[in-house]
Every structure is written in structure tokens, then in C-alpha cells.
């Protein structure tokens, strides 16, 4: 077991995390540094494939196979829905944020952040803490339900507001057709989002091919993970810093609430994951899924389903607050807790 400070320092002073801050400083110092668009997109495909293929290869070896994963998938789903619902009501009641923005923020808190997931994996790797490789594959089971829940809540809230106002003229008639999306469409869209799709797809590939015959590919996908992650976090730093700027016009209470929600979700996730039998490493990965705030699948869904929500707000919060917090402080705390519980 590690001392909490040791873990925090090890994490903070690891190359990937420092590359994140290199990106932040690049924006602050107005460097013309940017990760080329196509490289950034390639990097994400690589990282998701890497996580997916390892998850698949491990599930292939597990007793019980896919079936053994089922209870965890269900737990992930419950987490996705509960975090979203709790966030929504806190945002509406405590911060008096309107339904659309509350819905979008809640979706983001409930759904999954791939970058947080990757930092968690990298942290465990550098501390040589093992984890159940299938846990990252729970991604979509937490992500899609959170988005659907948030849209339902947001729309319900807007309807209630509108019926109170008895709005005579609908201001955005042109949007009505596109605004109403079927549940199935939302699920399909969040599963076919390129990142999630590659994760699931390469999981299936890992499952089919199995670990022995994946030797060569594993070397590629595993060996380069750390280095490519550095480049990914460099871009995340640039994005976080440029997004944080835009947050300044927003309620300052969003900062403590975002941090609180991350901490509570993460902590709860560690408890539940441990009680379900996951190792400390596996519990941390599960906590990363729960505590991270989505900035990829969520905006895509929100622009269509809750278009009244302000993207600066939910993107800024997810990238500028929740992600850096989890990366620097949250994850070490969850690990400490998980190791404490496992004793």
C-alpha cells in the first residue's frame, strides 16, 4: 500500500500528467503549439483500440467469460443513471440553473470521460497496481444511460417551465422536428460514436482472437500506450485551458459543485466496486468511469436534444474543472481509498 502523498506525487510528476500541464502553459503563454487535428483523432483511435483489445483479451481468459461481466455492467448502468439524476436536481435546486443547462451538465457528470479513464490506467501501470482489464469496457453501460436520463430530465423540466409560462409563441419552431429523438436513436448514436465504437469493436476483436495470438498487436498497442498518452494529454491540456477561459462568465458555484460531484461519485464507486469483488486497481478504474465528466458523446447528443444548453458551460466544466481535478487529486484519493478498503 502506498502513502496518499506518494501516490499523488507519483501521479503528478509522471510524464503524461506533466504533458497535460505543458499543454495548459502553451495556451497561457500563447505558444502556437497545437496537436494537429488528424493526429489527435488518430491518437484517440489508437488509445481506445488499445484499451479495448486488452479488455477483450482478458475477458477471453476469464472464467465465466462475458457472463461474469454482467453484474458489473448493471452496476455501471445504475451509476450512470443515479449520478445524472442527482446532479440534475442539485443543479436545479441549489444553483438554480435552468433545465436545459442542468440537463446537459448532468449528462456530462453521469457519462464517461475517456481521458480520465486513460489517466487512471496509466497511474495504475506506473505504480504497478494490477486491475481487471475488463472494467474499461463498462464505458458504454454507464455512458448511454446517463445521456438518456439527462435528456429525459431536461425535456421534462423544459416542459414544466413552458406549461407554467403558457408560452404563446414557440421561439424555435425550426428545431422541433430534429429536437425530438427516439430513445433508440440516442442509444445507437452514443454507441456508434467513433471512440466508443472502437473501444467496443476492439474488445470484441480481443475476445475473438485471444491473448496468445495477439502477441504482436499487443506489443504495438501496449508498448506505445504510454507515449501516445503523453501526446493525448498534451492536447487535453490545450483544450482544457482554452475552454476554462470561457467559463469565467458562469456562476462561480459550478466549481465546488463539479468537484464535489466527482469526489462523491468516485468514492461511492470505489465502495461499490470493492464490495462487488474488484481489486483496488479495478475499483479505481470503475471510479474513473463514474467520476469523470464526458465531453465527447455528451455535446454530440445535447446539440440535438437539449439545444438550449450552452456548450461553453458543460464543455468548460468537464474539460476545465472535472478532468484536471480527477487527474491530479481525485484518482490518487480513489486509489488510496480502494487500497484501504482492500486491507
Amino acid at each position: 500500500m502506498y502513502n496518499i502523498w506518494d501516490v499523488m506525487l507519483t501521479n503528478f510528476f509522471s510524464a503524461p500528467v506533466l504533458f497535460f500541464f505543458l499543454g495548459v502553459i502553451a495556451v497561457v503563454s500563447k505558444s502556437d503549439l497545437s496537436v494537429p487535428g488528424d493526429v489527435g483523432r488518430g491518437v484517440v483511435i489508437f488509445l481506445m483500440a488499445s484499451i479495448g483489445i486488452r479488455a477483450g483479451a482478458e475477458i477471453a481468459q476469464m472464467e465465466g467469460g462475458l457472463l461474469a461481466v454482467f453484474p458489473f455492467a448493471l452496476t455501471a448502468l445504475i451509476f450512470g443513471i443515479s449520478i445524472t439524476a442527482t446532479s440534475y436536481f442539485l443543479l436545479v435546486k441549489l444553483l438554480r440553473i435552468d433545465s436545459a443547462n442542468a440537463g446537459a451538465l448532468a449528462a456530462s457528470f453521469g457519462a464517461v470521460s475517456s481521458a480520465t479513464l486513460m489517466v487512471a490506467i496509466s497511474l495504475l501501470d506506473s505504480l504497478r497496481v494490477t486491475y481487471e482489464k475488463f472494467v474499461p469496457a463498462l464505458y458504454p453501460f454507464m455512458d448511454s444511460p446517463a445521456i438518456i436520463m439527462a435528456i429525459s430530465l431536461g425535456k421534462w423540466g423544459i416542459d414544466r417551465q413552458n406549461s407554467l409560462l403558457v408560452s404563446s409563441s414557440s421561439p424555435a419552431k425550426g428545431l422541433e422536428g430534429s429536437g425530438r429523438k427516439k430513445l433508440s436513436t440516442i442509444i445507437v448514436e452514443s454507441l456508434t460514436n467513433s471512440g466508443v465504437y472502437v473501444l467496443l469493436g476492439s474488445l470484441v476483436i480481443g475476445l475473438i482472437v485471444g491473448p496468445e495470438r495477439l502477441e504482436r498487436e499487443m506489443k504495438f498497442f501496449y508498448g506505445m500506450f504510454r507515449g501516445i498518452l503523453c501526446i493525448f494529454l498534451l492536447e487535453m491540456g490545450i483544450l482544457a485551458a482554452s475552454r476554462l477561459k470561457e467559463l469565467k462568465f458562469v456562476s462561480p458555484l459550478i466549481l465546488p459543485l463539479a468537484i464535489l460531484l466527482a469526489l462523491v461519485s468516485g468514492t461511492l464507486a470505489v465502495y461499490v466496486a470493492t464490495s462487488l469483488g474488484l481489486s483496488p486497481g479495478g475499483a479505481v478504474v470503475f471510479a474513473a468511469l463514474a467520476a469523470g465528466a464526458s465531453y465527447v458523446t455528451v455535446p454530440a447528443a445535447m446539440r440535438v436534444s437539449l439545444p438550449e444548453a450552452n456548450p461553453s458551460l458543460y464543455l468548460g466544466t468537464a474539460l476545465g474543472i472535472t478532468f484536471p481535478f480527477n487527474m491530479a487529486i481525485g484518482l490518487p484519493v480513489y486509489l488510496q481509498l480502494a487500497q484501504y478498503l482492500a486491507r
Partner: protein
Amino acid sequence: MVKAKKVEIIANYMDVRVMIKEMEQVGIKGYSMIRGVSGRGKHGKSHEESYIDSMTSCYIMVVCPEVQAEALIVAVTPLLKRFGGICVVSDVQQVDFK
């Protein structure tokens, strides 16, 4: 050569996807799109490069008869109002080949 209207829109990539669906509903069958647009507008600076689609802007150009252009603008205006961006229309001569 036939007279036509050229409608040019610059907006967030996510919104453009919605706009294209609106377009198809008003009967527009041809359009072109260029990704990786950066710039500045009422919402501040936008960047060309990001793996997150909802952070990138996009240019679309539609060449169509005047009636369609009008329908297109009506369909697209509420989206522009809500999310920002820019839309201009100009007169062009379209090379006619059938």
C-alpha cells in the same frame, strides 16, 4: 449558364450536421462542406483543430435556385440564432450541363 443562389454558412460542426438534415427536408440535393475552419465571431475565437467534433467549425456551400435558397434560410435561421455562426447569400451563374 443559369442563375442560381450560393448560400454559404459557417457554424459549429455539430450544428451543421443538424442543418444538413434541415436542408434535405426543404429539398436541397447538393451541398459541399469543408472542415477545419477557424475564426472569430460573437462567441470568441474558434479553433480549427480538435479531436472533439463539437469544438470545430465547418463551412458549407449550397448552390440552388432562389426558391430553395429562401426555404433553406428560413430553416437554418433559428439554428444560427441559437448557436451562432454566419450565413450569406450571393448571386452566381451556374454552369449548366446535363
